[in-house]
């Protein structure tokens, strides 16, 4: 099964003909993803990578039966593109853009309320079910099919954890990047719920960072609702307060926002916390075996 995206997913790419979109659509297809077409307004009727290009998401869904969209449009146009995908009935929307104005995402979240869709991101490397479906910009070759779910705010730290896992022979059911923005589509709890419900996932690695309380909320949720073990890490122990550490959402604005405070709380709530980011794989291997 895996979560959110799988072998049967039919993917379209919004902003299809752009450079990054083209590169990653091609890479995804080489690694087993079923891309069925794309959308670039004004280029409808053309073909790109031997696939049809449409002017609107609505047309793309009608013609191809797409149920997943990877959004590769630049930040100023991303909110509009997400809402277009929502309106067209796309079930899983992956938003790569880093730099969407926060208030745009506030409106997107309101627009998404009551619709049965999952928005992954923004500011995410995307989502991958190894060997089945990749929607995003991560290097497919570092992932291997397996039974551990991975969810993280950061992209490169996700790669780091996955490589540590792969070195020890642990594969992934699905790896989800929920993104580094303060207002994002999907939180940790939603992803943990999906992993808990997925018969092909045995355990979860959750990688957070400074800022906000969602790691702690997720740990609390897991304690009350989850049967599968969770290994957790929060980046930014050495980050100074009040400074935005690259990601728009990675800022310590209070005592409870710090990495140490969050890891302490998570540990109290039963998460297997790793304090050294170099030992995420090793800890997971010990806890899960």
């Amino acid at each position: 099964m895996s979560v959110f995206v799988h072998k049967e997913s039919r993917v379209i790419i919004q902003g299809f003909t752009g450079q990054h979109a083209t590169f990653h659509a091609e890479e995804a297809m080489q690694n087993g993803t079923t891309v069925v077409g794309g959308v670039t307004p004004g280029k409808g009727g053309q073909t790109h990578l031997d696939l049809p290009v449409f002017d609107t998401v609505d047309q793309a869904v009608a013609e191809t039966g797409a149920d997943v969209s990877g959004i590769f449009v630049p930040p100023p146009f991303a909110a509009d593109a997400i809402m277009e995908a929502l309106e067209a009935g796309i079930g899983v929307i992956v938003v790569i853009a880093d730099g969407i104005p926060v208030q745009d995402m506030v409106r997107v979240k309101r627009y998404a309320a009551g619709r049965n869709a999952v928005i992954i991101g923004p500011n995410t490397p995307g989502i991958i079910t190894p060997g089945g479906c990749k929607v995003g910009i991560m290097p497919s070759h570092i992932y291997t099919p397996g039974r551990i779910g991975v969810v993280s705010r950061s992209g490169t730290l996700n790669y780091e954890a996955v490589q540590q896992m792969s070195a020890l022979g642990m594969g992934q059911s699905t790896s989800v990047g929920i993104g580094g923005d303060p207002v994002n589509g999907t939180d940790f709890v939603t992803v943990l719920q999906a992993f808990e419900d997925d018969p092909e996932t045995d355990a979860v690695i959750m990688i957070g960072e400074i800022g906000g309380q969602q790691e702690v909320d997720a740990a609390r949720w897991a304690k009350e609702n989850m049967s599968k073990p969770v290994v957790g890490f929060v980046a930014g122990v050495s980050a100074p307060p009040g400074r935005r550490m690259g990601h728009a959402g990675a800022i310590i604005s209070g005592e409870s926002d710090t990495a140490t405070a969050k890891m302490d709380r998570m540990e109290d709530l039963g998460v297997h916390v790793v304090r050294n980011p170099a030992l995420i794989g090793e800890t997971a291997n010990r806890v899960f075996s």
Partner: protein
Amino acid sequence: MNIHEYQAKELLKNYGVPVPDGRVAHNVDNAVAVAEGLGGDRWIVKAQIHAGGRGKGGGVKLASSLDDVRSLTDQMIGSQLVTPQTGKDGRLVQRVLIEQACDIQQEYYLGMVIDRATQRITVIASASGGMEIEEVARTSPEKVIREAVDPAVGLMGFQCRKIAAKIGLKGKQIGEAAKLMQALYRAFREKDALLAEINPLAIVNGGSLLAVDAKMNFDGNALYRRPQITELRDFDEEDPKEVEATGHGLNYIALDGNVGCIVNGAGLAMATMDAISFHGGKPANFLDVGGGASPEKVGNAFRIVLQDPNVKIILVNIFAGINRCDWIAEGLVQAMRELEINVPIVVRLAGTNVELGGPILAESGFPFIMADNLDDAATRVMETLEAQS
């Protein structure tokens, strides 16, 4: 992006928020002229720096004569103002805001933020004005009123009246406060703010409301559509290394350790700092080279990190997804050729084109210390530092 108090007040005034009569001054004569122009016999002289806690540092003073205005301005302009938020070196004061003094009868707190929990613009208010809201939230959380705004309809009048009543406003002040909140909300929305704070919001003689202090912070990602806000940026308030880094598309934050860090991705950059700390070291900086790091970008990263005299060693940690290890390696070699680099460099490469990156470094003849993984990298940094001392 932060702006000065006088800029925030000017902006909010245009939206209809009542603020004290006042103007900014860049020198003593200017300040006296402003005070004379405002009239009255008492003025407030306020140092304009981006950090908060100015009152505690002596940056907000009452002047009872024009001579006072002169001497206070003279003390402030050109001085390094130290407040609880500036660090021990303080910040250089380059201008002061001169305002007519007013008699404050009661103080409240009014703020707006984008709340992570509700993922909406949220109004925060409290009857405990003048205090930091974090402090109030810690000591008496029941005194902090929160009201989330539905983005589909905006901040409604009834919500404003509810907040006003909850903080204890009465009579005509309720309507006045509602008008003020609507004005603040419009400014927040139309200028893509992340934070707006009026602290204190005061009741002054005659019973009317006045925004005695104002602070605003704006979304850097929305500046492309807010040219008026972009113009308010004061580069003097920022670390020149950080400004230079931004210009090169790099994300740099200076810290106080001695291990320079060059990493791709914000999360991995933080984790790299954490791994160094875990091994007993101290990172000198946070630096994210971002995606698509060209050799030029890598060279610029080195230049910026090396401007910090405390740096004794540099750790380059790249996990290439959208990046390419061969480009990073070429950038490293180029930087070694062009810059005078006298500190050891530990390199860990992984991900896309790693098989091309390693040989480029090995064949360059430069003494890069290669590491296999994150743990190995942090260990080698510490070993090398110890061998040096």
